[in-house]
Structures are given as C-alpha cells and as structure tokens.
C-alpha cells in the first residue's frame, strides 16, 4: 500500500547525524551508529500508554522523547458541559489512582469561588480519605514498580493492603474507585458505624506491613544496584522543570503543600516530610515508602480528633438538604429541585486551587461565568509536568535504568493526557 511505503520512506529519511557527530566529536573522532527505538504505547513496563522514542548508542540512552495523548479523554471539555456537581465524577477519572485528590482540588476551587465554609468534621473526613488514597496510590506504585524491576511477588503483597483500603472506601461511600465521596461543601455522607473500628484496625497493621515491604526491598542487593546512584537529577533542574512532589523531595527540597500552604485542616496534624539527599532512584523509592508511615500517623490523629458536627455545609443553596426534610419543609423541596435540575450558580471569577497529590502539585483552575456550569476547568496535573524531567534524567543511562526511572517517576497517564 502506498501509505505503507511512504511511511517506510519517511522513516529511512530520518538522519541522526547531528547527534552522531556530536558524540563522535566527544570521543575524538570515533564514529558510532545510533538506533532509534520506539517503546510503547503498548508495553508492559510503561505505566499506562506512554510512548517513548529512545535514541540508543548500544544500550546507552542518548536522547528520549515522550509522546503522549493515547488516553486523552477530553475531560476538561466534558466538564464545561455539566453542572458543577456533575463535573465531580468526570474530574475524578483524570488521575485514576488519586481520585479523591482530583475531587478535592475541584471541590476546593469551587468552594473558594463560592466562599463556602466547609464544616470541621467534613474537613477531617476529607483528610482521612485523602491520606488513605495517598497510601493506596503509593502501594500501587510500589507493587507495579517492583514488578518492573523484577521483584514480582511485591505486587501481590501490595495489592493485599490495597484491597483493605478499597474495602474501607466501599464502606464509607459504596464504591471502590471513583467514589464521588467529596462534594462541594463537604462530603456526601457521614461515615457509617463500624468504619472507625475498621479503620483503626487497618492503621494498627499498616506500619507493620510497610516494615515487611521495606525489609523485603530495602537491602536487597539487586534493588540497590538498580536504584542506587542511578539517574540522579539535581534540585535546580527539577525546579526549573516545575517538578514537585516526591521527586523534588528526593532531591532535598522539603516542599510540601500540606505544610507550606495548608488546606482542609492539615495544619492541625503533626507529621514529618521525608526528604532525600542525592536525588537518585533509591531516594525517590525511600521517600515514597516513608510517606506511607507519615500518612498513617495523620489518619490516626484525624480519627482521634474527629469533631462532631455536620458533614456538609448547611447552606441549602449549595448542598442537598437531608431527605427527611423534604417531607416537611417547602423550602427544602424547592432547594432540592433547583439543585438537582439546574445546580447551584457560582459567581463569576477565576481561581487556581493547588493541593498536594501523591505525585506533586495538583492544581485546579476554574473560570466561572455566573452560570451553573463552569466555563473552563483545567487541572494542572503533576505527572504531566514531571514527565518533562524524564529526558534529563536518563540521558547517559542504560535502557534498564530507563525502565527503573520511569517506575520511580510514577507517571499516571490518565493525568498526563486528561
């Protein structure tokens, strides 16, 4: 077919001579042939459908170009067509491992626009679920990264804990993933009886389990050789690239929005920020592992200090009234009707609301034009920006190190492509 031969001709016409000459000049005249290889989009070692064009010299990566867009869902445009509370399920499916964080960023932005006060109990419940989600995201990262590196049995251990966390999510909201639990003004429902007991049981076993994972991996010779000293990147380059989250903390910068710019009552809790020293793959691994311990501490403090009170704002123009009120109060009925059919109206304005997701700074930009549907929703996804750091990290490293670095980068393609 002509298109096929045209494609082959185009492939053959690509020359890599500038890069080859550069390398030859570095070597003092010895020329070498470079191979451009396409990794993905369907590849077992990439976390999602990420396509990489690597230019190799032997087994050393000389140049890397990520090509994304294979899971682009048009979430931001879909969000413009729906009322604000209907956007929440859509926006949750963006970064599909940290769905509570997506919902938190969006709800926080809308609440800022509305100047709506979130009750304290709702804030503490939000913190509990956010930290549970953070643990779950780090567990999936640990399982799949260990799988990539060859420590296959870690996958089953991590998913065992993940199932317990998903049981908790199912207990509080009815769904395992994409739970729609966070609503504008608070949370959709109070936690049921028995949730606290189950959660306490979980946080009593979790540090022990994390110790088990650490014991399995931390001093494993193969893991150390694959991660220690591999693909470091200094803090200045990372900051220039806009990288945040565990990657930046591994390089030594303790920037964490939970401490720097607290939201949802994070200032009430005492926890530490794990920070690395060298910024290589091992530091990224260790930082995330340590964050699991810290998250357990936060959950325990939130559970101990959980105040009584409403779980969603009392403003009936924003939150649905409780069902029993509908039988007696006319206003409740009207509010319910207006909220369900049209939705609440948000005063016009623009806001950018950043939070700390397991991968870095997750920001939600909303522009509202006074109607009940947002005029523009943009999520500043951490993985999208962190992906730009891959190329500087892996230049000069082996292909196997590329796979390990991708694993330690923790990219989630749903967030990258939105």
């Amino acid at each position, binding site marked *: 077919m002509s298109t*096929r031969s045209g494609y082959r001709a185009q492939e053959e016409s690509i020359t890599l001579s500038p890069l080859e000459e550069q390398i030859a000049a570095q070597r003092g005249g010895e020329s070498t042939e470079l191979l451009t290889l396409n990794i993905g989009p369907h590849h077992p070692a990439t976390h999602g459908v990420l396509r990489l064009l690597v230019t190799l010299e032997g087994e050393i990566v000389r140049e890397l170009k990520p090509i994304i867009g294979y899971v682009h869902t048009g979430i931001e445009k879909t969000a413009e067509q729906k009322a604000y509370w209907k956007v929440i399920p859509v926006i949750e499916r963006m970064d599909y491992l940290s769905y509570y964080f997506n919902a938190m960023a969006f709800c926080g932005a809308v609440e800022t626009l509305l100047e709506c006060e979130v009750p304290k109990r709702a804030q503490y419940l939000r913190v509990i679920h956010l930290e549970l989600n953070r643990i779950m995201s780090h567990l999936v990262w640990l399982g799949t990264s260990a799988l990539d590196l060859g420590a296959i049995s870690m996958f089953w251990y991590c998913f*065992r804990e993940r199932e317990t966390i998903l049981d908790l999510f199912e207990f509080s909201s009815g769904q395992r993933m994409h739970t729609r639990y966070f609503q504008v003004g608070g949370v959709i429902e109070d936690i049921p009886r028995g949730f606290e007991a189950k959660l306490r049981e979980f946080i009593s076993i979790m540090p022990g389990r994390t110790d088990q994972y650490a014991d399995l991996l931390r001093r494993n010779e193969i893991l150390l050789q694959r991660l220690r000293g591999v693909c470091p990147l200094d803090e200045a380059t990372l900051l220039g690239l806009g990288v945040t989250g565990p990657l930046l903390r591994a390089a030594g910068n303790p920037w964490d929005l939970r401490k720097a710019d607290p939201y949802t009552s994070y200032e009430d809790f005492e926890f530490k920020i794990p920070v690395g020293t060298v910024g290589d793959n091992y530091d990224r691994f260790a930082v995330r592992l340590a964050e699991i311990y810290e998250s357990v501490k936060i959950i325990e403090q939130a559970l101990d200090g959980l105040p009584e009170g409403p779980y969603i704002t009392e403003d009936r123009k924003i939150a649905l009234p409780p069902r029993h009120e509908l039988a007696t109060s006319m206003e409740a009925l009207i509010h319910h009707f207006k909220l369900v059919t049209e939705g609440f109206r948000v005063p016009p304005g623009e806001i950018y609301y950043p939070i700390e997701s397991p991968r870095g700074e997750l920001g939600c930009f909303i522009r509202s034009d006074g109607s009940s549907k947002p005029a523009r929703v943009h999520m500043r996804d951490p993985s999208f920006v962190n992906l730009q750091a891959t190329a500087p990290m892996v230049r000069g490293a082996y292909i196997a190190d590329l796979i390990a670095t991708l694993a330690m980068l923790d990219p989630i393609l749903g967030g990258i492509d939105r």
Partner: protein
Amino acid sequence: MALTREPIEPGSFRARGLLARDMLRGDLEGLELERHVEQSLLLTTLDRAVAWGRSNAIFPATFGLACCAIEMMSVVAARVDIARFGFEAFRASPRQADLLILSGRVSIKMAPVVRRIYDQMLEPKWAIAMGACSSSMGVFNNYAIVPADKFMPIDVHVPGCPPRPEALMHGILKLRKMIQEDPDMGWRERYDAEGTEEVLSGAEPTGA
C-alpha cells in the same frame, strides 16, 4: 405376525447410525449432509476436549489503558484470583496472547494501535471490552473517545465504571463458557474479521 414399525426418534442412536450409513453410501446431499457433518463434528469428544483446553488456558495480553487497568490488576491479585482459572500467564507480546482485555478508554490516537495489536494476535482470539468506556462511550461522550465496537469485534462487554473485580471475573467466566459451548464464532463475519491477522512475511495484511 404383525409387523410394527417403531418411529425412529431424531437424534437417537438408531437415527444417527442410519444417517452415518447414508453418508458412507454417498446418499446424503446438500443441507442434510451439512447438518450431519456439523452435528457429528460438534459433538465429538475431541472437539469438546479442545474447546475445554482452550477455555481453561487463555493467555490474556497485558493491555491496561486507564482506570479499569487498576481493577484488572486487582483481578490478578490475590483476593479475586484469576490464576484459579488458568489465566495467570499474562503475555506482553500479542503474538503469544489469546485474549485482549480492553480495560479503559480508547482515545482517537490509540484506536489504530489497539486494532493493530488485535490484528497481531493469532486465531483463535477473543476480546473483552471491560468497563463502560470501551463498550460504549462511558462517562465521556465527546470528541476524543471511540467505542471499541467501531473498530474491532468484541466478544464480551463488561459494564461498570470501573467494574468490580468480581464483575470482570463474571465476564471472563462467561467468555469461558462461550468458548466451551460454541467455539464456532461465526458471528464475527459481520465485522469482516476473518483473515485480518498481521503476518510479517512481506505480504500485505488483508481485511480492515
């Protein structure tokens, strides 16, 4: 002595014996011959054994696209264990895989890639559309998503967003039952899906 003729029930041993005798004599023709061949072949123990073997040792291809991929990983994990049914060997290369579990939303950019991977799988092959996004458009009805039915034949659609691991298990077991009972899969003719394998021998791939 009165002659009585007992009616021969169709499908009984005697009737099948008579049909076999007619076939050997060359007396069966056209539709009758076809039907006889079909019946006797489908009911042979050998065919059933092959279908049983195929259904219990499917190699799924590792093909996770989005959120449903995480629930697919849960199916592989210990609580809902897919290895009990023989599906544990996930093959990365489509040439070695039998089953494509389309887990996640298929975007415009990804659709030709998925089709190519499906083409690279060798017959017999099956496809499960996991989740609402791949079966229909799911939550996102917009310019960027393609429902999988538009470009490749799907055997089982599993609804859910994402489907629970138990729901995916149900879909997989349904597929397994389909393979055991009706391995014919002639229904795929309407997709023009015959002969679309991509075989790298210098020959152009036929079909879509």
